[in-house]
Structure formats: structure tokens, C-alpha cells
């Protein structure tokens, strides 16, 4: 039973029904009738063998990117100053905030998969939630660097926190930028603990397989002494449910508050009530794009095709299609609001966005986000690896440009023509942007080698215990 034969539709099984009649079966979440033991073996195998050549090459590139990222930050920004970057009057928010919003947005898909799909009882999430949640954490880590750099004096970044100090200064709690600090740090903390919650039983599995004493020691520490006792599982399950319930409104609040950074200002193009839902949907859209970009190579390099199946990817593509259309709808709504408001400045900004200096950025954004995902109306395209990989890359590009368009077009041409200017990214800005991808991929690649990339315990819990081993014998050729 090859994976290619599977076509994502229910399969008719004659004489399998409860009364001996036909029964339609969904495709199983784990293919090829793996037993519980095989699930453990398959997921732990990449941790226990030497890295493959593609991984080493990818890691080399990621390290290079991370090195660029670090050297730009250290040599450029910390030692020289913000003058190294393109931000200047009138564009005070440049590539830093573009990248900050972009990376925070990437994180949203992970929480959506692990929390929202958990509440909706979508069992397919078990195959991909671990990696998606890892992506969230690394994306938030990347995002967090940018505001710290952007304040100019990163060593005073703790001034943003409310702590008693001799200057009698407090942050202004009326400001959405202060809300942002609370939102992002809460989001990062809860994501890490939610992720770790699921990892503890899997670390115990890795520990119990370990042969080398050092490996046993490390994974023993990480597993906190988990034994699989049902008295602990009882609380663990409820805790997962509670954390999902907390993370769901949390993830919506994070990008809502990020959008408040813009929407509470009076800058034309930013001052819009549509911003919170528009940002949240855009975040989910871009996050699912990045999920695909990461999972497609990962499942093939780590040989996890039986766990992250074509059905998982197809479901992700459906979400991309839906959210892509909502994003496109939001772009159009902005134009309608600009026209309908009768505001001269608002109308000018939107005409200027689509046909002004930065028209190319606008149309890259619009076509990548609203038009390209339309290809997923066709099932063949939704199940084609090359197509979805290219689309996922274009979605990443499109969503980066969305933030670029919002920030740059509104700031370069606001109310007074003598206040206008252009924004040009300096080589340092490019280094920071490209380097941030290296920094992000570096963490993800390290994660692939050291963590169980599929939630072993959760996959087992949605796996029918009678399904293992015997399945291949019971349903010989193409039974599902």
C-alpha cells in the first residue's frame, strides 16, 4: 500500500459494518498499520542516528544566516547605532517592526494547531502539533530580538518592564506598546510550558530507550521523572485541556494587541477597526505557510511520512485557502472603508499603496496572499508536494510584504507633503532580515535532531490499538 495510492477520501469496506453491511472508513491518521512499538521506533530513530547530509547542509546555511544576524546586531546596532539601519525620518518603524510582526505572526499557526484544533477535537493535529508548536516558540524567540534592537539601546530593554526604580518611572499602561510586552511575554511563556507539557512523557520514552548513560541522564532530567503512572496522566490530560483553553484566547489576543500598536494611532492606513481580525487571520495564514515550509522537508528527511501524511498536508492547504481568502477580503475591505469614509487622507493612502511608489510591494503582497492560494481549490494541487511547497514559500514572501506595505506606505506619505520621504533598506537591514531566517532555521534544525518531532503519546492515544501489525494482514492490497 503505497502512500501515492491514498487519495484522502473515505474507503468502502464491504461486510465490515456492525450488521455485516458496508462501512465507509476514513483514512487512518497513521499509515501502514504501525504498532505502538513501531511508532516509538520511527519517531525516536532520528534522535539516535548520525545526521544526514541534507541536514548538515541545511544546518550550515542556517548557521551562516544566524552568524549574519548576530554580527549585524552586535557590530552594527549595538556598537555603532541605529544609523546603520534605513530607519530615519519619516519612517521611524522600518524593517525591525516588519520582521517583528512577521515572526510573531508565524508563531500563531503552532498555537492554532495545538490549542484550537485540540478544543475542536481535530485528531489529525497529533501528527503535526509538536513541530508546529516548536515553530511557534522559535518564531517568537526570533521576533523578540527585533524590538530589543529597535529601541536602539538594547542593554536598557528591561526599562520596558514595570519595576520599582529610583527614577520613579513607570511604563504608560495606556499605551498598546506596553500591552504588547505583556502579551508577547505571556505568549512565549505559555507556549513554552504548553509544549513542554506534551514533551515530558515523550522525553520519558526516549529516556527509557537510551543506551548511553549521558543520553539517559539528559533525557531523564528533561522528563522530570515521568513514569507513565495513570495518576499523573489523569492530571496531565486535564492540564492539556486547560492550557488549550487558555492558549486559544491568548493567541487571538496577541496579534490583536500587535494590531493595536497600529490601530490606536491616527496614521492613515493604520487607524482602522478592521485591524485586529485582519492581523489575526494574516498571522494564521502566514503561520500555516511556514508550517508547510518546515514540515515538507522534515517529514521526508526524518522519514515521518506515515505520521505527517498527505492528509495532514491537505488539511493545512485547506486552511491556507480559507485564510488566504479572508486576507484578500480584508485587503478589499480596506479600500471600501477608505472610499466610504470620505476621508481624503485615507483615500489617498490606499490609492498610493496600490499605484504609488511602493506599488510593486503591494502587488507582491496581494498576488501571493490572495491569488496564489486559489490553486488549492483543486484536490490534485492540494496533494502535490512541489505545488504546496512553492505556494508556502510565496505565502511567506507575501505575508512579509504585507507588513512592509502597511508600515512603509503609511509612514512615508502621511498628512503633509513636505513631511514625505522614502524608505530604503540598508545592507544591514537585509542582513537582519535574511539572517533572522537563519537564526530561526538553526533552532528548528537542532530541534529536529534532539526532540521527538511527533507527539508520541498523543499519536498513540488516537491510534486504534487493534490497528497495529494485524492491519496489513487483514487488509492486503489498497484496503485503505
Amino acid at each position, binding site marked *: 500500500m503505497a502512500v501515492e495510492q491514498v487519495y484522502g477520501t473515505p474507503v468502502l469496506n464491504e461486510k465490515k459494518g456492525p450488521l455485516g453491511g458496508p462501512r465507509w472508513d476514513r483514512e487512518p491518521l497513521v499509515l501502514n498499520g504501525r504498532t505502538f512499538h513501531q511508532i516509538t521506533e520511527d519517531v525516536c530513530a532520528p534522535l539516535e542516528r548520525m545526521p544526514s547530509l541534507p541536514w548538515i547542509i541545511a544546518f550550515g546555511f542556517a548557521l551562516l544566516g544566524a552568524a549574519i544576524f548576530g554580527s549585524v546586531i552586535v557590530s552594527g546596532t549595538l556598537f555603532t547605532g541605529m544609523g546603520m539601519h534605513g530607519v530615519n525620518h519619516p519612517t521611524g518603524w522600518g524593517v525591525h517592526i516588519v520582521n517583528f510582526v512577521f515572526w510573531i505572526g508565524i508563531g500563531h499557526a503552532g498555537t492554532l494547531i495545538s490549542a484550537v484544533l485540540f478544543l475542536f477535537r481535530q485528531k489529525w493535529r497529533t501528527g503535526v502539533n509538536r513541530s508546529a508548536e516548536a515553530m511557534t516558540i522559535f518564531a517568537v524567540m526570533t521576533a523578540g530580538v527585533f524590538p530589543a534592537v529597535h529601541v536602539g539601546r538594547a542593554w536598557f530593554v528591561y526599562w520596558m518592564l514595570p519595576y520599582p526604580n529610583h527614577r520613579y518611572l513607570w511604563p504608560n499602561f495606556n499605551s498598546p506598546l*506596553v500591552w504588547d510586552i505583556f502579551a508577547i511575554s505571556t505568549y512565549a511563556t505559555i507556549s513554552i510550558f504548553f509544549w513542554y507539557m506534551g514533551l515530558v*512523557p515523550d522525553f520519558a520514552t526516549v529516556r527509557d530507550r537510551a543506551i548511553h548513560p549521558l543520553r539517559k541522564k539528559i533525557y531523564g532530567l528533561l522528563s522530570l521523572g515521568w513514569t507513565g503512572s*495513570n495518576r499523573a496522566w*489523569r492530571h496531565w490530560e486535564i492540564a492539556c485541556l486547560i492550557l488549550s483553553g*487558555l492558549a486559544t484566547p491568548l493567541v487571538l489576543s496577541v496579534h490583536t494587541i500587535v494590531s493595536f500598536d497600529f490601530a490606536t494611532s491616527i496614521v492613515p492606513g493604520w487607524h482602522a477597526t478592521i485591524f485586529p481580525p485582519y492581523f489575526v487571520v494574516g498571522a494564521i495564514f502566514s503561520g500555516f505557510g511556514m508550517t508547510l515550509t518546515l514540515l515538507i522537508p522534515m517529514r521526508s528527511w526524518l522519514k515521518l511520512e506515515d505520521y505527517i501524511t498527505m492528509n495532514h498536508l491537505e488539511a493545512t492547504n485547506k486552511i491556507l485557502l480559507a485564510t488566504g481568502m479572508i486576507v484578500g477580503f480584508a485587503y478589499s475591505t480596506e479600500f471600501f472603508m477608505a472610499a466610504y469614509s470620505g476621508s481624503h487622507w485615507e483615500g489617498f493612502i490606499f490609492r498610493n499603496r496600490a499605484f504609488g511608489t511602493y506599488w510593486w510591494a503591494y502587488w507582491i503582497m496581494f498576488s501571493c496572499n490572495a491569488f496564489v492560494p486559489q490553486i488549492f481549490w483543486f484536490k490534485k494541487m492540494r496533494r502535490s508536494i512541489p505545488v504546496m511547497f512553492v505556494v508556502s514559500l510565496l505565502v511567506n514572501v507575501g505575508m512579509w510584504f504585507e507588513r512592509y506595505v502597511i508600515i512603509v506606505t503609511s509612514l512615508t506619505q502621511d498628512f503633509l507633503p513636505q513631511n514625505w520621504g522614502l524608505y530604503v533598506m540598508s545592507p544591514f537591514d537585509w542582513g537582519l532580515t535574511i539572517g533572522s531566517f537563519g537564526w530561526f532555521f538553526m533552532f528548528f534544525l537542532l530541534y529536529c535532531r534532539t526532540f521527538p518531532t511527533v507527539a508520541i*503519546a498523543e499519536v498513540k492515544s488516537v491510534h486504534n490499538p487493534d490497528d497495529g501489525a494485524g492491519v496489513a494482514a487483514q487488509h492486503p492490497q489498497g484496503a485503505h
Partner: protein
Amino acid sequence: MSELRGIYGVFRHPDDLIHAASKTTERNYESWDCFTPYPVHGLDPAMGLSRSWLPWVTLTFAMIGLTTAVTLQVTIMGFNWPMNFGGRPFIAFPDFVPIMFELSVLFGGLSTFFGVFLSQGMPNLKPTIIDKRFTDDRFGLWIGADNEGFDPDEVKQFIQELGADEVLEHREDSE
């Protein structure tokens, strides 16, 4: 000198363990447990365990978080150093809502995480791993030797009759 700490049965199928657990519950042991590689549904009622009390911990700490956020913002903005931002009231309550929400979630979430593990005696650097297969593909029923009136042969026979594949002793060196 190794000492008998308990006797355990190894099962292949979760349903067998659920059956065994419900039979063991009837015997009113003090020290016994089930070990599974994943959360098996139906095992809690079979073991006579009620619903987890964890949501109350979350609620309590979420309320503490909420109170912290209100106190922090009202005290700072209203009393400690009132400042005029564009003529808004000093205590502009709607502006405080985002941080009220965030701190409730932060406190609630962290207490949930720590509640699970601390209540189960974790982190435990030297856990008793009875059988390494219990985190892989086997399901275990454990009856401790510290139960009142523990008779190894009788317990072995009891677990055998419940349909265990293997019935094994767990021994540890006495210190």
C-alpha cells in the same frame, strides 16, 4: 540484599488493563497504580479516580493574576505617579483590560503546569522505573508490597487471572 517492592503485570491491550484495574479497585488496595504509554480513556473510572481537581488551581491563580494586574495598573496610574496623557482619566479602565487578561492567563497557565508535576512528586531525579516498556507499548498493573496483608503468591495469581501476559516482581536494593 534486594527487597521485594511490588508485583506487576504486563498487558498488551489497553482494554485488558481497564478490566484488570476495575477488578483491582474492588480489592481496596492502598498502594497500586496503572502504567500506560499514553492516557487511556476509561482507566480513571476503572481505577475509581474522580475528575482532576486541577481546574480549581487554575481558576484560583487566574484570579490572583487578575487581581495583580488591576492592582498594578490602578496603583501606578492612579496613585503612585498620576500623569496626564491626552486628557484621559488617570484610571482609564478599558486600557487596563489587555494586561488584566494577559496576567490572568499567565498565572493560570503556569499554575496548571506546575500543579500537574509538583502534585505528582516531580521533578524527580531518581524515579522508580518499574519496566521500560511502559513508556513504549505495554500496559502495566502495579501492586505495591507495602499494602496491608500483602501476599506475593496470592497477588501473582490474582494478576495472572486478570489476563496479564507476564507477572513480574520488582526488587530494589535496600539501603
